Structures are given as C-alpha cells and as structure tokens.
C-alpha cells in the first residue's frame, strides 16, 4: 500500500514537471492532432453502432423486431422515406446519445449470455423490453418521434377527422405524448392484457 502511494507520487511528479526535450509547439500541435484522431475514431466507432447493418447483425434483432418493422409504414411507404433503428431508439443529441449508449452496454451483456437468444425467450421478455422503451419515450416526451414529426407542422386538415380531433384534444394541449397512443406502430405488441385499458 505504501509503495503504491510512492509510485503514484513519482508519476504525479513526472506529469507535473515541464517537458525536457519537446518544444511547446510540438506538444500543443501534437496534442491537438492526437485529440482530433481520437475524437474522430471515437465518433466514427460510435456511428458504426448506429447503423441498421450493426443493429441487425445479431439474429435477436434481425429475426424478431426487424422482421416486424418491415411491414410497417416506418419501413415501407409510398414516398420511400424510412426510419432505421437508431432514428427511434437512440437520441440524436450527443450527450443523450452517450447516455443511451452507456445503458446499451447491458444489451451487450444480454447478447453474451443469450437473454433473448431464442424466439421463446424473446416472447417471454417482450413486455418488459417494450415497457422499457415506452417508459423512455414517455420520459423524453417522445423525442425520437418528434425528431421527424413536429406537432407544430401538422396540417390537421390533411388528417382524417378522428386523427385531427384526437391530436387537437390530446397532443396540442400537451395532455398526452405520442407514445401514449401510438404504441406498437413499428413492432408487434406484447400481451396488452393489463397494459391497454379495455
């Protein structure tokens, strides 16, 4: 313990003392370039984990939730604009994204230990998994929906009468958020027995 403290002190002294061989310009420029390289590599690496190819690289995603997405309007529609996994499941702002990515390390754990590596296990966990996402979107006021669907830009005269009425009454007043009503639009719903008031 004592020797460890000595070691720490020695390293601290080395770090604190000024450079003996390198010029200030070299250290500043070198530090800057190293910073750019590190930052670039970090962000590129993180963006790689934000692609559809990465998300559907595991059979858990490819054969369960991705299959279900394919028949919905967020995958195929008349104009060909579509959403990929991170559009809805990863916040776009950097700090929120990092927070979500850190949470996602639990998903790596799940992958390693096969939490949902069969269809049956996935179905058993479906309610829990869905509830996590519902809670997340409820907490951030359906941020990921609103990244594309802006309530301020909705022309309700182009919506069906019931959609216009519902949006006027619940969405524009802030009484409800998107996910309150629009559950199960991109994936199949879990057993809603208790979740949907009947």
């Amino acid at each position: 313990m004592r020797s460890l403290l000595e070691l720490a002190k020695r390293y601290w002294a080395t770090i604190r003392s000024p450079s003996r061989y390198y010029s200030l310009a070299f250290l500043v420029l070198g530090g800057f370039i190293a910073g750019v390289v590190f930052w670039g590599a970090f962000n590129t690496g993180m963006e790689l984990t934000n692609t559809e190819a990465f998300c559907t690289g595991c059979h858990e995603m490819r054969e369960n939730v991705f299959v279900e997405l394919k028949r919905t309007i967020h995958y195929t529609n008349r104009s060909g604009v579509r959403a990929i996994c991170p559009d809805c499941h990863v916040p776009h702002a950097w700090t929120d994204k990092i927070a979500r990515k850190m949470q996602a390390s639990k998903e790596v754990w799940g992958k390693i230990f096969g939490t949902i590596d069969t269809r049956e296990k996935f179905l058993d966990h479906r309610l829990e998994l869905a509830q996590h996402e519902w809670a997340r979107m409820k907490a951030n006021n359906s941020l990921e929906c609103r990244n594309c669907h802006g309530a301020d830009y909705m022309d309700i005269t182009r919506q069906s009468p019931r959609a216009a009425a519902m949006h006027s009454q619940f969405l524009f007043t802030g009484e409800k958020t998107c996910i309150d009503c629009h559950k199960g639009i991109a994936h199949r719903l879990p057993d809603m027995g208790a979740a949907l008031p009947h």
Partner: protein
Amino acid sequence: MRAAVALPLLLLAAAVVAQVPLTDAMRGKTPVADETRPPPLGNAENNDERRERVYSMQPPTIPHKIDNYQLDLNANACLGCHSRGRAPVTRAVAVSVSHYMDRDGNFLAEISPRRYFCEQCHVTQVDAKPLVGNRFVDVDALLKAPPAKAPKR
C-alpha cells in the same frame, strides 16, 4: 348403330368442353390453373362518416383505415378506441352489448371470445367497381313497393 355414332360424338363434345379453359367471374379471364395478377390494393375510405346499414342486422362497416392494426392474442387495436371504457374518451362507437353475450345469452364481463376478431364481421370499404352484379333490395323499399300480384293457383 345409333349408340355407336352417339358415343364418339359425346366423347368429342367432352373433349371440346375440356379444352375451353375454366374461368371464374371473380378471377377474370385467367384460367384456374394459372396465377392471377391481383389488382393493386385499394385505399380504404377514411372519412369517419358512419354508413347506413343496408339491413337491420348488418354489422356496421368501418369508415376508416385499419392498416396494420394489430388484432391477435396479444392485442386488439380496435378495442383501443371502441371498448366500453375507452369509447367515451375517444368518441368512437362503443362495442354493442350483444358482443358481451355468449351464445346462450349470458352476459360476460369482457368481450365474448366469439366476438373478439372484429374483422370477421366489420370490414373497411373501398370505392371500387363491384365484381359481380347485385339485385339486393332494402326491406324498407320492399315494403313501400306496390304489392306483387299473388301467384295464380
């Protein structure tokens, strides 16, 4: 002698009939053995205007789109708005009390399982040309029509 002539004729007629491809009014001109090219899916009417029933016991038709509505063991998207509890909030038509009865007329607390799959009876409508003709007359129109002459005995 006559039978000897008639039999080949009959066989010939059968062969001719067999060569005429079997067609079906709903399938168009495509022979039964071939695959049809189905017409593009229609856009279901979506104006939310309740349609009149053609006869009193007709299941009301759905005046809106139901694309991708989940209706299975896990969830019933229709009941998300049309259930007894939700209907006052959503201002949708509440499911009729008859749907809470089992076949013996006993009332149940929940939708009767035999009524669970809404689309068995309630369907959307597309503004399409009817495939086959229809001579249906509303019973009200029938009652107003001058009485037909009684058939002679």
